């Protein structure tokens, strides 16, 4: 496998006696988009800040493109973008001036800076406000400008802390597309968010944090409850109530490929192999059992259920 773009090893961050993050390890490769979820105080922001080299570690290591973030900041930072939960901006500058300032900080040439500024102003729907003072922008616009700041240097690794907070519904939809596009460009991303439905849509991986620890980590399907990438949950709705449903499902219950079978009057849920061939086979078996199948589809992994299954409530 190719070298990880971001590698976190046994991360521990302690504020005095309070352990904010404890023993966290993960790796991100090109095209990975990790969604970080957990209650407030779970250690998400600390993890992101530590991964960006902003938070001193008690123990552990963070490597970006093979470089230690704490030892080679000027090299690493060429490839790293970080959006904090509160947009960091200079209120007295205009939108365009601010992005020019960032371009200078990253040593971009005038031509390249001009091109990228125009690109991100356009893509983040700020082109019309480029002459506006930042203090005059709404919360959502400031958030978009903070994202533009992060993406302006074209980083390989992008870390975002609650980036969708403050965005309107249309903005959220566009933002989801933007993240998916960044992922497809081969960047490695970590995004923390409380909007689990959004995360399920664009993330490749999910990490659930609680009390500073990584409670679950894996692909979206793995975390959402599917045992593996090869298995899927199927939902079958019958055209009418079937009285002897249990008897008709006896053969399926005996089938080793079927698991987690549940049924109730006109609804059946079960887990079976994910591929299309297996789906066709399952449908054939259901029809062979004399069941009037009206709807037959796989169920998207349910992150909310997975999150609640971890037993996490609000951290005190």
């Amino acid at each position: 496998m190719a070298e990880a773009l971001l590698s976190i090893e046994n991360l521990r961050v302690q504020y005095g006696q309070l352990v904010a993050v404890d023993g966290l390890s993960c790796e991100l490769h090109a095209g990975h988009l990790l969604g970080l979820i957990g209650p407030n105080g779970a250690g998400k922001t600390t993890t992101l800040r530590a991964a960006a080299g902003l938070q001193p570690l008690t123990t552990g290591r963070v490597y970006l493109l093979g470089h230690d973030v704490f030892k080679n900041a000027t090299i690493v930072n060429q490839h790293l973008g970080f959006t904090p939960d509160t947009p960091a901006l200079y209120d007295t500058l205009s939108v365009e001036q601010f992005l020019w300032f960032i371009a200078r900080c990253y040593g971009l040439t005038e031509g390249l800076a001009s091109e990228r500024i125009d690109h991100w102003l356009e893509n983040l729907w700020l082109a019309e406000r480029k002459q506006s003072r930042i203090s005059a922008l709404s919360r959502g616009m400031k958030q978009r400008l903070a994202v533009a700041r992060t993406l302006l240097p074209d980083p390989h690794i992008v870390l975002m802390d609650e980036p969708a907070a403050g965005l309107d519904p249309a903005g959220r939809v566009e933002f989801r597309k933007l993240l998916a596009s960044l992922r497809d460009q081969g960047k490695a991303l970590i995004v923390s968010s409380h909007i689990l439905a959004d995360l399920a849509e664009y993330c490749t991986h999910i990490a659930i944090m609680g009390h500073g620890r990584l409670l679950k980590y894996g692909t979206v399907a793995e975390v959402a409850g599917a045992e593996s990438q090869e298995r899927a949950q199927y939902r079958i709705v019958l055209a009418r109530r079937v009285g002897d449903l249990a008897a008709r499902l006896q053969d399926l219950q005996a089938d080793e490929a079927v698991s987690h079978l549940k049924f109730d009057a006109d609804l059946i849920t079960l887990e079976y192999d994910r591929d299309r061939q297996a789906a066709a086979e399952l449908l054939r078996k259901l029809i062979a059992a004399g069941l009037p199948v009206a709807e037959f589809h796989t169920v998207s992994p349910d992150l909310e259920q997975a999150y609640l299954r971890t037993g996490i409530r609000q951290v005190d």
Partner: protein
Amino acid sequence: MMSLNPLLWLHLRITGSARTNVFIATAYAAIIILFASLSFYIAALNVPPRNRPATFAQINVVWLSIMTVAQGVFLLLLGPSAVRRAIQRDFDTGMLDSHRLSPMSNLKIVLGYLTGPPIQAVLLYAVSLVFGTYFAASYAASPGLGGAIGVRATLGGWYFAQGCMLLLAAMFAALILLTAIATRGKANVVGILALIGVFGGWFAIVFVPGLALVLGVLSGGVLFGLLTSTKIAGDALTIVNAGALQFTLCLIFVTAACGKLRKPERPLFSLPLGLTLLIVWGIALLAGMHAAPEYDWLFGEWREYRFAQLVASTIAFMLVALLPLGAAAINLFHHDRAASFGERPVARSRLLLLAPLLAALTAVCLDLMLRAVGPEQLSRAAREALLHRSVWAGIAAALLLSFWTDFHCLYSLKAFVRRPMIAFLIVLATLKGAPLALDGVIKFCVEEVAERNWTGEGYLTGLSPIGTLILTPRAGTAVWVGLVTQLAVAIGATALARRARRHLGKHRVAQDS
């Protein structure tokens, strides 16, 4: 334009538009022109024509002084304050993190903060420079005293003084920047220093001549004397010494700020940098002590307090020695904590325990040299007493025990206390200052209130290492009693540090289980 420091570019935009800055500079110039013209006009009305050249020369000197003071205010107060406020603003808005996340080098960021925020102060300084040049030239061209010096020499002296002021301002701004980075811009060091300057700065300067040298008081006096009279008020070499010290300290502060910028968990000074600072500070104290007798205009009244200057200089050295000592203690703590998680080998950090020994050794050397150069105005017997072997042994023991205790206290506080620095200051005040204060209070109560003879004087003072320094040539028993107590305190601090280290080890046990 893209090569301009980004933070300078930024502050050229956020400290006001070009029009605003031109307006400020013009308004300031107009005020100077108005009042200067008025002062010359009033003089012309009230002074007979034959006396006017001399009066005008005096008015030029007054305005030259006003311009110099204004420049000092702009460069030493407004400029550094702007640096601190910029750091505080960027901490509060998160922009400092943004700079840390950029590929800009630490030095580029630090230089950006040193040059960008004070832009308006520098502008006003430049306006004052133009007017100051005019007043200096007018004074030098006038017949009499000014004319005797010559325009070229006066202007040369004026611009040389500007160079000295810029060096001092650079050192001061670098110090403010460093403290602002360390305290997130919350500690208003400019204000604190101004307060100290107003309420106790004079005493600090006369009792620690090295401070007068570093702060440019001695060289400023020499330069002003050169500008306004033909007499040299002191040693002209002092200007070079002060400049060299200020430049070196500026470099040290800038290096420390660079180191602290992306590593907020690190001590203010790394161990090597702290030791360098200590050596430079020691040189400044020695040079100041050596130069002091030549500056009667400053130290004349305090000639009989030569021993107090000596002790105060050693105390000033001990205070600065806490920086490398603190760095070593914090490094050892971080090392031990990482080792408790199995991240680093334990043995490597043990060398840091040599830091108190090293600090004590340098302090003893400095004290010895201070005693060698300092008390030439004391009697022969007093000088011999200061350099007696038993006195030396006592001082060396007190300094070693003091640094050893400080080192281990800081280590323990880092492990046990949420705000170790504040706790350490309390410990410092208790161990070093309280015995002296208590002794003074008891002496006052017994002698002044009860009107009896106090025979126990010095016993409480001796408990503090500062007390040992004060008492050494005289109170023998009090010194030895004090040293035994200091030894007991040092043993206690060591035991506490050992306990703190075991406490760190518990993390490992908890993690393993």
